[in-house]
């Protein structure tokens, strides 16, 4: 009920700005992020092995810092085709004549969440005032903000453990946050619990990555240069209408790439034209699972490690000492409500009834 009214209100009166995916968890270290994206390759001598994409730091002082509670404007790992980097020859092209097609090489580098529009001129990458954390798949081609990235093939895959979404609860003032992550986890692996997978054999060239499966969200990126000549790369997460069970939770969902092939097709802008790539995103189904988490995550300043742990929402967080204090104090005041006729009447009735009962 409440949700409907709110949504309706936003639509009618204020703006078409609907909050979508705006919080993630990225807790893996750079080397782990790379290894988790390993693909199986066949060397020239026919040996098969797993190869992890290369890590590249963002120029300047923009470091990726793993976090359980990542909000826009933070730098997080994003996978792109190496052809976006100057001076990198295209390996796959060289090999093409030899019959075997190799997947094009990928690199992973941190970029800022929230695409900086190319037309924005300023010394600082933040403060352009546009909401660019997400872009809607439906109208990507019409948006001046995102069209240039689309045309230039600046497609990326945003890597994260999972993202958070808030579900409005009927008749409640608070929203319940959920942590949403890839459904395809190996048995025994809890993506929110490092101790369930962080062992010596978690990665090897022979067997690949045995840790948690990261969520791979389709994104667009831009390369922006500040008025002071600083280069900042930034991204936006593509979202689409939610389908299936997830739509009970929220009406929008990031476009999630489930297979290596989907990832390759989305990133290989030389081979897959943008129209075809958008068709691909329209088809992909989010293979995700989720659990409720603590409302601690609501504040992006909270960075505790248990942010994405499952909680039982029925068992409310124990009230703080201060809130108990407040509740006890207010109990003393019940029956002395001032200035409200309705309540006064009710209270009087109650007193009368109590008197009657005593008789």
């Amino acid at each position, binding site marked *: 009920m409440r949700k409907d009214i709110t949504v309706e209100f936003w639509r009618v*009166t204020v703006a078409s700005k609907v909050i979508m995916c705006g919080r993630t968890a990225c807790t893996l270290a750079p080397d782990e992020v790379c290894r988790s994206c390993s693909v199986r390759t066949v060397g020239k001598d026919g040996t098969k092995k797993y190869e992890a994409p290369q890590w590249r730091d963002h120029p300047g002082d923009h470091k990726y810092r793993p976090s359980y509670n990542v909000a826009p404007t933070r730098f997080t790992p994003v996978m792109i085709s190496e052809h976006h980097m100057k001076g990198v020859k295209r390996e796959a092209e060289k090999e093409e004549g030899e019959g075997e097609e190799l997947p094009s090489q990928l690199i992973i580098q941190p970029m800022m969440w929230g695409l900086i529009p190319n037309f924005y001129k300023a010394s600082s990458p933040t403060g352009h005032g546009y909401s660019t954390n997400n872009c809607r798949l439906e109208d990507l081609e019409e948006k001046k903000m995102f069209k240039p990235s689309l045309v230039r093939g600046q497609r990326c895959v945003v890597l994260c453990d999972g993202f958070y979404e808030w579900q409005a609860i009927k008749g409640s003032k608070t929203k319940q946050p959920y942590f949403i992550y890839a459904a395809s986890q190996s048995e025994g692996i809890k993506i929110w619990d490092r101790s369930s997978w962080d062992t010596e054999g978690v990665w090897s060239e022979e067997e690949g990555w045995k840790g948690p499966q990261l969520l791979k969200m389709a994104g667009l990126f831009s390369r922006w240069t500040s008025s002071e000549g600083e280069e900042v790369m930034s991204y936006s997460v593509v979202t689409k209408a939610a389908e299936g069970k997830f739509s009970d939770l929220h009406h929008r969902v990031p476009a999630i790439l489930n297979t290596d092939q989907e990832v390759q097709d989305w990133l290989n802008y030389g081979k897959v034209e943008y129209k075809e790539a958008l068709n691909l995103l329209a088809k992909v189904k989010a293979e995700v699972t989720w659990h409720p988490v603590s409302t601690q995550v609501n504040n992006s300043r909270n960075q505790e490690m248990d942010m994405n742990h499952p909680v039982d929402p029925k068992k409310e967080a124990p009230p*703080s000492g*201060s809130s108990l204090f407040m509740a006890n104090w207010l109990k003393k005041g019940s029956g002395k*409500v001032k*200035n409200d006729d309705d309540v006064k009447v009710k209270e009087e009735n109650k007193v009368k009834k109590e008197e009657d009962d005593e008789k």
Partner: protein
Amino acid sequence: MFEARLVQGNLLKKVLDAIKDLLNEASWDCADSGIQLQAMDNSHVSLVSVNLRAEGFDKYRCDRNIIMGMDLTSMSKILKCAANDDIITMKAQDNPDNVTFMFESPSQEKVSDYEMKLMNLDQEHLGIPETDYACVIKMPSGEFARICRDLSQFGESIVIACTKEGVRFSAAGDIGTANIKLAQTSSVDKEDDAVIIDMQEPVTLTFACRYLNMFTKATPLSPQVSLSMSPEVPLVVEYAIGEIGQIQYFLAPKIDDQDN
């Protein structure tokens, strides 16, 4: 039919600025005597009480008591569309689904209407216990806002200690400690600048800066603020809303959760 017209429309704008950071949504109780809002913040540590008296409005009519649940973020967005010198009128039917805000420019040349859908909120009536306070400190509201802002750089909480000599605000944290002492004003030239302490017994209590800083969003409403304290009861921070009412913030003292 409910209708309330306020020539000084910017008072209502300021009231919204004073509560919207603390409350996401709240119910406005409209009765013959005036408009009231009482709500606790999400963490249930503080309580806000707004009271606008019927006499304070330039025109006030309320045939039946109504409760209007509003999304305060949305209401604030609408009120942002009113100019500071606009006359604001709130209107609703007896069993309203909507509330209308009408803004008139002083010259009456521009009239805007904004209609907002109301929400069904679970409303618990909060009884505020009548309390005699051991200390009541009246001080310039700007000074209080400044003190809260300055001290919140040092730590998460502020200690307010009131003695007959004056009132001391202090904070401690990683970077060091901070102490601000205000003495009672001896000669009052301007009433708004005075610090007046009415003390029965000394009180020292600790409060979370975060909340105090949200309360000081009400500073533009009034040149003076009053802080009322007693041991074992919440602090009351009160601002007058022009001539028409007042806003009170109740805040539970900081309690170490481990002790409980």
